[in-house]
């Protein structure tokens, strides 16, 4: 598996500019990624971009090997990148990079599996959403879509930053710090925008 990444890394090296990093490793992705991570820890954005761009294909293969279902792989890949970003100060450049990354990815896969199991224990897929009730008002097959339309309209009433904060914090369950990192907003702005978005949605939905 690692050999297949050597080719990808070769391409990356040809695109890149950091000669001191390129000189570190010609054959082993681990050494190259380790050098890129060390540079990223020092604030080198180009090295960090090269590293993060190179990792998703590796992570997808790794997660498949960990028996992660195909529809969850992209989520866990993203979650792994977020965690890597959050704990990047814990990487010791004197140690191999791949075991460090693999441990994070494996942990995130286990967490996702546990979360899914917990949800599955409490929730069941509803096959009888469209059902006949005594109340004719309840008989509309389009109820579910109507609510979705209402929500979509209400979401359209939010500002872009409010929508972004709400989506990252409430729908993707990121922490405030992670949402701030992803969106470029400050943590304070994330909190304020999430709060305002919820208040605005509540007001808009109550009006409708």
């Amino acid at each position: 598996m690692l050999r297949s990444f050597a080719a990808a890394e070769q391409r990356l090296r040809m695109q890149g500019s950091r000669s001191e990093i390129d000189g570190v490793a010609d054959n082993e992705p681990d050494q190259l990624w380790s050098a890129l991570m060390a540079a990223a820890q020092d604030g080198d954005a180009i090295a960090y971009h090269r590293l993060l761009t190179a990792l998703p294909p590796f992570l997808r293969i790794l997660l498949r090997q960990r028996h992660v279902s195909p529809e969850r792989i992209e989520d866990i890949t993203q979650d792994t990148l977020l965690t890597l970003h959050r704990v990047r100060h814990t990487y010791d450049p004197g140690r191999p990079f791949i075991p460090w990354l693999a441990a994070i990815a494996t942990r995130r896969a286990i967490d996702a599996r546990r979360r899914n199991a917990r949800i599955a224990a409490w929730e069941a897929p509803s096959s009888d959403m469209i059902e006949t009730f005594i109340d004719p008002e309840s008989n509309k097959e389009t109820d579910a879509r109507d609510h979705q339309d209402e929500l979509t309209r209400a979401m359209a009433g939010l500002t872009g930053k409010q929508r972004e904060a709400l989506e990252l914090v409430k729908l993707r369950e990121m922490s405030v710090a992670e949402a701030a990192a992803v969106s470029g907003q400050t943590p304070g702005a994330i909190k304020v925008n999430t709060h305002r978005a919820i208040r605005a949605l509540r007001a808009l939905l109550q009006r409708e």
Partner: protein
Amino acid sequence: MPTPTDQLILALVRDATPVRRLRPPLQRALSWLAVVAVIATAATAAFTDWQVFDTRILNPDLVIEMTGTLLTGCLAVIAAFHLSLPDRSPRWALLPIPSLILWLSGSGMGCYRHWLTNPTGDWALGDSAHCFMFILAVGLPLSAGLLWALRRARPISPVPVALVGGLGAASLAAFLLQFFHPFDITFMDLSVHALAVLIVIGIVAAKPVRAGLLATREG
């Protein structure tokens, strides 16, 4: 059209400020233990009855027990600092086990010998309640301090970190207890010590406490 993963990468790169690397875990553990040693030395210098302690320390069972508690405390703290890092083996959690066995066997032997000379009084609660309170009163703040020191690693598997960290802090509290423990250990005493240690570990490993102190995000 960039994918969500590409967008995420760009956002993370935008946030790529320089970070201060963590010092090696052994070094961090020794720094933390050094701080505890300074506080403990000051506390024992001020409050220990050295006349009583000098007599008790002649008992080899007490020496074995104190060696066991001290080693368990130090090794568990070192293990917790290692476990807080993503790429360290979970087997670090086994590091304090041999010294824990030494502690329990040393105490057990002391209890047995005490029971041989005093077979009726061994199960009386006596001053054991004070020992229980001491381990909680010292073990919990030590645990809080330890987890606070460990939070910089933002452990991705916080449960073993909290469990082993709790064991380390409670063991150090049990070690310090012997400087203020004016009698030989009894079976009741040993049971109370073990219960207090388990309670400290349980509190520290409870999700709200560990998540709060370690500042982890647990799904």
